[in-house]
């Protein structure tokens, strides 16, 4: 069966006019190789220029076009229309974030959380010395998958703890903290562990695991969180834990 068109139901919300978000239907041409982002761009160019959404690279790298497609957290550039036939395709903003306008959400809380875990290499030296800080392939393998995070925030959209505990640092920030904890060049492991074992961090996670299931880059934030829980518990209970 061939499809000429497919319907997209897109969330619309104008804070100046609407009291709550609503869905608006758009009929767009169906192309076998189109993704939801292509359809949104077609709507903006041909039907309604007022639709707002974030996007940039169109190839799953920038992490800008996170949205809920038929209720599931997806990158708009990776959600093919052919997987949602015959439609309609319900396109909503990412869950667990306040809606600023249409599909655009307020991500300022995430940016604060990300900065809080200091996702960068911290060294003892005050000045950068000559030469390189070389690593073996095995050392890189320790943290490689956590370094693939593109900050798309789909894991926050899938995490049911975030709406209950809005201060929870969340999956991506902890995965990135773990990435630097496992980096042989970093010297702030204990400092980060103290941050992560404090309030609003790893112990808020009840291990639903859907953060890892929805990650478009194969990062496993649930693993990062549970490993940190295990290591901090060992640190408290065992004599070599340094407490």
């Amino acid at each position: 069966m061939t499809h000429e068109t497919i319907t997209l139901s897109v969330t619309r919300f104008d804070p100046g006019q609407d009291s709550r978000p609503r869905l608006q239907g758009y009929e767009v041409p169906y192309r076998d190789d189109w993704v939801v982002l292509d359809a949104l761009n077609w709507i903006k160019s041909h039907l309604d220029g007022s639709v707002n959404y974030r996007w940039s690279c169109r190839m799953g790298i920038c992490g800008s076009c996170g949205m809920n497609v038929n209720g599931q957290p997806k990158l708009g550039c990776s959600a093919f229309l052919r997987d949602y036939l015959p439609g309609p395709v319900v396109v909503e903003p990412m869950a667990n974030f306040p809606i600023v306008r249409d599909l655009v959400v307020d991500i300022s809380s995430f940016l604060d959380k990300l900065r809080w875990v200091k996702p960068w290499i911290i060294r003892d030296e005050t000045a950068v010395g000559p030469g390189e800080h070389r690593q073996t392939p095995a050392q890189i393998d320790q943290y490689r998958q956590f370094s693939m995070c593109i900050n798309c925030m789909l894991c926050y959209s899938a995490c049911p703890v975030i709406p209950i505990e809005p201060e929870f640092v969340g999956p991506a920030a902890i995965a990135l903290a773990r990435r630097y904890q496992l980096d042989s060049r970093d010297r702030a492991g204990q400092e980060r562990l103290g941050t992560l074992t404090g309030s609003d961090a790893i112990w808020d996670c009840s291990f639903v695991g859907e953060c890892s299931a929805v990650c478009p880059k194969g990062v496993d934030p649930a693993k990062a969180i549970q490993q940190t829980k295990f290591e901090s518990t060992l640190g408290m209970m065992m004599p070599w834990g340094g407490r």
Partner: protein
Amino acid sequence: MSPTSSRDASQPRLDGEARATAPDRVSAQMPARTGEPAIAYPVKQPFTWWTRRRGYLLYMLREFTAVGIAAWMLLFLVQLARIRQGAAGYQPLGGPLFVAISVVCLALALWHSYTFLSLAGLFMRIPLGDRTVPARLIARAMFGALAVVTVAIAGMLIWGGA
């Protein structure tokens, strides 16, 4: 300090942030921010959130197994309390209903154990030289340990009791 409270302007800023927020040519040309921040619509999680994804449902089932285990432990405590009445007055729980409840609780306990031990390799990171012990090996070791402990306790109860 909570992660989002760091937005307080009175908090010391990090070095990297100070550099990032230093005025540059582009931001100098942009209009200054004035007035209240844009109104954002707060989204609440519906009560039926756990029905939206299969993973949510499996999570709730996994957590619910603890209720069955706790219920059986209460029955076990009742039996322990009855021991205080002495050998003559001790009447262990029995009958088809208790057996049925025990079988259901055993199934819940086994499911809980299976889900927990399957993930042991995920949360346990055991360094081995410059690598780590494979997750699959850790999970298998855990299931092996469960089997050994189960047989040992069953042996104590069956042959020790006889």
